[in-house]
């Protein structure tokens, strides 16, 4: 049987692979099951840690992640895709798949080096850099994409990184706070969806309007 650390490491690599896919894919529809898969992997990791550390809190958190981030939020997002079919692909991202994939990999390597230089003495576990790398991947997604649904998915990736970090670095993070954080994230996602609907309805900005928001 695999040692606990190896399981954690393997699941972490799986999460990282989903992050690479999220960054490289230019169609919007496949991103939703991918982020659901990422949440599921994270929940599996939390469940495994809950099993090895006999922690009920972690198990509850794992269940909540499955319920909220692997079921509810993808369902809501998928309804938005169906409602706005022409948002099915992000056009300028389609031309930049290579750049995005390479940027994701480069950022992963750089992020790992930064983590090693700053925080590694405090967290010697081999997979400790992965939450930080995932955080950077989420930020990269927010910075490089302009489709609002894709940015919401990038935000979800960010929050997954946070839960991952909490599981590895601060395993007794107060349950109450984590639950309310989840609800907060849900709130942000819902507000994001409302705004993205409005953004689609009112259309893209004209020339003069874009100027009003610059400078």
């Amino acid at each position, binding site marked *: 049987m695999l040692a606990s650390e190896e399981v954690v490491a393997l699941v972490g*690599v799986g999460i*990282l692979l989903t992050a690479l896919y999220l960054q490289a894919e230019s169609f919007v529809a496949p991103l939703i099951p991918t982020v659901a898969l990422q949440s599921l992997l994270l929940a599996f990791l939390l469940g495994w840690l809950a099993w090895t550390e006999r922690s009920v809190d972690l198990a509850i958190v794992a269940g909540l992640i499955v319920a909220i981030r692997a079921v509810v939020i993808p369902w809501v997002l998928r309804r938005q895709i169906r409602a706005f079919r022409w948002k099915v692909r992000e056009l300028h991202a389609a031309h930049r798949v*290579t750049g995005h994939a390479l940027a*994701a*990999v480069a950022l992963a390597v750089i992020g790992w080096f930064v983590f090693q230089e700053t925080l590694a003495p405090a967290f010697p576990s081999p997979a400790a850099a992965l939450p930080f790398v995932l955080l950077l991947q989420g930020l990269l997604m927010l910075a490089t994409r302009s489709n609002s649904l894709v940015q919401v998915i990038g935000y979800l990736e960010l929050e997954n990184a946070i839960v991952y970090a909490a599981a590895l670095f601060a395993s007794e993070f107060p349950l109450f706070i984590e639950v309310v954080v989840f609800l907060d994230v849900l709130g942000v996602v819902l507000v994001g969806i409302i705004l993205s609907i409005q953004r689609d309805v009112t259309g893209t900005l004209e020339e003069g309007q874009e100027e009003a928001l610059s400078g």
Partner: protein
Amino acid sequence: MDPTAQIVNVLQALTVLLLAPLIAGISARAKAWTESRRGPSVFQPYRDLAKYLRKETLIPTGASRLFVGAPLVAFGAYLLIAVVVPIITPYPIPFAATVDFLGGGLLFGLAGTLTVLAALDAGSNYTALGASRSVSFAALGEPTLIIVFFAVAVITGTNNPYVTNNLLASSTAAYLSPTHLLVTAAFFLLLLAETGKLPVESAGLMELGMLEDGRAFEHSGPLLGITRWNGWLKQFLLYSVFLNVFLLPWGMVSTPTVGGALENLVLLFGKLLLLVAIVVLLEATIAKVRLFKFRDFLALSFSLAVLSVFVYAVLGVP
């Protein structure tokens, strides 16, 4: 000066040379079968070689000796690679010490570069097109190949493919490690790209991807035969390396006799048939990507390769 080892050495070289066209023929026949055609005989490549040897050689005006020499040097490079990587033995044969794995990768690069230079030397529009395309994609393909070899080195601590083969065959943990899985995936994608399979390029009469075929457009006669043979050798070598080092390193008999080598040869043939079946099935289910998306395909392969080394650094799991 062990005579058995020398015989096995020569046997390996002959295996590569003589079986490469057969694998290409089986591949073509299997693909035709998926398209509901009967397809050419599996021995057609041999007949093609014989035909080319009988034809006359035409050299474009303005082509230099490079045009004539490049296919021959490339052939020599492939032949050298053939005795360096594990094909029918899990232990190094006498010539295996010539170059290590990285050197093998560089030899692949040498052959490719010479072919491209010869294509440019020919002065034709088609060959120039093929050369420019293949070089622009090689910009992403070659680093992937190098990093794949680095990943191998990272797993075992040496650049010796035989050591890798033994390690992966004996240790399940090493085989199932994320580093190895990722690098196998990366190498598989690279394999599809380098040997010109879908979704990258569709070899055939209808498609003009002009990557592999384009470079050889101006050669004729025996030189064309050598060029075609180079293509088959490249495919055979990449397949064998993929199978014996990455995907299916098991089952090789390690007794240093000619009999053992022959057994391994039969085993290798079986593995190759399996890989051909996988590739043909993949080709039957997938569509060709547009040319400018080829770069994305290679970028994905590159990312997986870099990630495999990164994963090793992060996790420390060999």
